[in-house]
């Protein structure tokens, strides 16, 4: 009797563990599936965009004086005689391999171009986000702790301005004041022409490469050029992050465990920065990831203003030259990173919150 009972309970325990495992597995499987489906959707949309062009892609390749045979041959070569879904399959296959075709402007594979320009965008977005977090989080906390007083009002207004200003205009104003009138920072571009190409591009991020090579002139020039665009972009990050931090903080300060902390006799500073903020960081990680994604998107405009040679500028220039391969390629990459970050933020939340484990 005892043995049957223990066997049954053992079985129950085993199935219990199995169901827990399958739940965990299905949660991450679901996440991977969502990622895949969304990416697939992105490809579908970009494919359709590429196909709705009024420009005939064959003509773009062979020129408008080609003979019928050359035209037909090129058409077959481009796969345009195939039914649409087959073309899409070829497209997806190519993208997965990283083949976006050749750029009309540079005559090089688009993927190589993207690899060349992406680090610049990464550098800008990362520094901007760091600034946003460094200043945005304390400001959000300050605003929440002083709710409705002048600190709160002014921080909220600052954030509100950030939501209402066009980033490219703010960049121009920044250039006007700090470069044009005051001469405090360098002008557009990533680095002085004098220093361009002097440092071996190991990571593609000039700050890191020059620091590693010990070439401090280049490093300083890079900072000189980085400071204005990253501050402008950082302001947007700050507006968003401080607003969300404030909101999360206000919610946490209402919770019972905060009273408990005070009952224990903890200083108010410790209550805020150790207890409340610890709980704020959980949803804040998601916000930071989303902010990063938004900055990547805004880079298109900022890079144009600051002549920053990143992916955003690459897309814009290709656009103005009707270089569709490059535009689509750039769009897919930015789109993929954007989608990835959105979904990653979801995953991060579940990792960081002990309640979700």
């Amino acid at each position, binding site marked *: 009797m005892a043995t049957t009972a223990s066997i049954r309970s053992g079985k129950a325990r085993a199935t219990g563990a199995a169901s827990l495992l399958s739940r965990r597995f299905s949660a991450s499987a679901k996440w991977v599936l969502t990622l895949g489906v969304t990416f697939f959707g992105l490809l579908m949309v970009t494919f359709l965009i590429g196909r709705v062009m009024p420009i005939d892609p064959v003509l773009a390749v062979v020129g408008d004086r080609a003979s019928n045979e050359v035209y037909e041959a090129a058409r077959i070569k481009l796969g345009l005689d195939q039914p649409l879904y087959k073309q899409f399959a070829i497209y997806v296959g190519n993208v997965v391999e990283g083949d976006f075709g050749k750029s009309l402007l540079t005559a090089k594979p688009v993927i190589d171009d993207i690899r060349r320009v992406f680090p610049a965008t990464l550098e800008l977005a990362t520094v901007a986000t760091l600034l946003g977090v460094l200043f945005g989080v304390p400001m959000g906390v300050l605003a929440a702790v002083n709710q409705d007083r002048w600190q709160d009002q002014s921080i909220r207004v600052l954030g509100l301005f950030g939501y209402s200003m066009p980033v490219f205009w703010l960049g121009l104003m920044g250039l006007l004041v700090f470069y044009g009138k005051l001469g405090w920072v360098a002008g557009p571009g990533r680095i002085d022409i004098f220093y361009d190409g002097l440092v071996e591009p190991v990571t593609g991020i000039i700050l890191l490469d020059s620091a590693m090579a010990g070439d401090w002139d280049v490093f300083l020039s890079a900072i000189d050029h980085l400071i204005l665009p990253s501050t402008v972009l950082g302001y947007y990050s700050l507006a968003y992050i401080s607003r969300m931090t404030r909101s999360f903080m206000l919610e946490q300060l209402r*919770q*019972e*465990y905060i*009273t*408990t*902390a*005070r*009952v*224990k*006799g*903890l*200083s108010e500073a410790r209550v805020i920065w150790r*207890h409340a903020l*610890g*709980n704020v960081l*959980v949803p804040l990680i998601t916000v930071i990831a989303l902010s990063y994604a938004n900055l990547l998107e805004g880079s298109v405009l900022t890079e144009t203003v600051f002549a920053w040679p990143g992916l955003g500028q690459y897309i814009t220039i290709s656009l103005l030259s009707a270089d569709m391969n490059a535009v689509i390629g750039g769009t897919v990459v930015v789109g993929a990173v954007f989608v990835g970050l959105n979904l990653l933020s979801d995953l991060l939340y579940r990792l960081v*919150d*002990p*309640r979700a484990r």
Partner: protein
Amino acid sequence: MTAPLLTVEDLEVRFHTRSRVVEAVRGIGFSVGREKLGIVGESGSGKSVTGRSILRLVPPPGEVRAKRLDFDGLDLMAIDERAMRKVRGRRISMVMQDPKFSLNPVMRVGQQIAEAYRVHVDVSPAEARRRALAMLEAVRIRDPERVYAAYPNEVSGGMGQRVMIAMMLIPEPDLLIADEPTSALDVTVQMQVLAILDDLVSERGMGLIFISHDLNLVASFCDRVLIMYAGRVVETCLAAELHQASHPYTRGLLAALPRIDGDGRDLRTLDRDPAWADPLSVG
């Protein structure tokens, strides 16, 4: 009654909202020594607010005023915030209702207990850990090491409340305020937690203010009982003499309690007399 630890005289708590002023506590007074005092009342009677005002933890827009709020020679209304922080936890502590909400969800339980000790006594982290583990044993948790490393969502309600008790008793306060400590627990667990509370309070010779809406519970657990209604104290007596209570509100409460040996008739509902809210507090 032993020499009083805490003396409250004419305590008033008001909340100033945009449309009106809410008077949560309207001039009450009582004393607590090293004994168990129960404060019973329905929602809105002001009993929880009373507990918090002793610790000066009534949040704005609340305003606390009292003719006297003395604790062991200290004038709690007069001392500054820094001095008050030394009182909180170390001299007076409070156990709250629901450990699901009153424990920090992203901090390990053991750390929270150790923190309660280290804020008042300068010891090494290792020593604080040792004491926290000892405290977990004192509240009869069988696997203190495991619980120490657990997060609040990983422990059951009863265990969480025991953790709360451990956390609030580790700095060895003289007075403990328990604000509905068992209301969020299953009935079976309630008795266990109460027993632990009873033992620890008696062992250490502490005073206890037990706030609850459960008259029965308070009557069986405490030495003296205070009945609050609409921000005033309407009756105060020894727990043993509760059935001799005179105020109509108390009698109404008593009559509304189901009894296993009762005659099976419908329980009398309380007829609220607005006059009960008027007279000055008793005691």
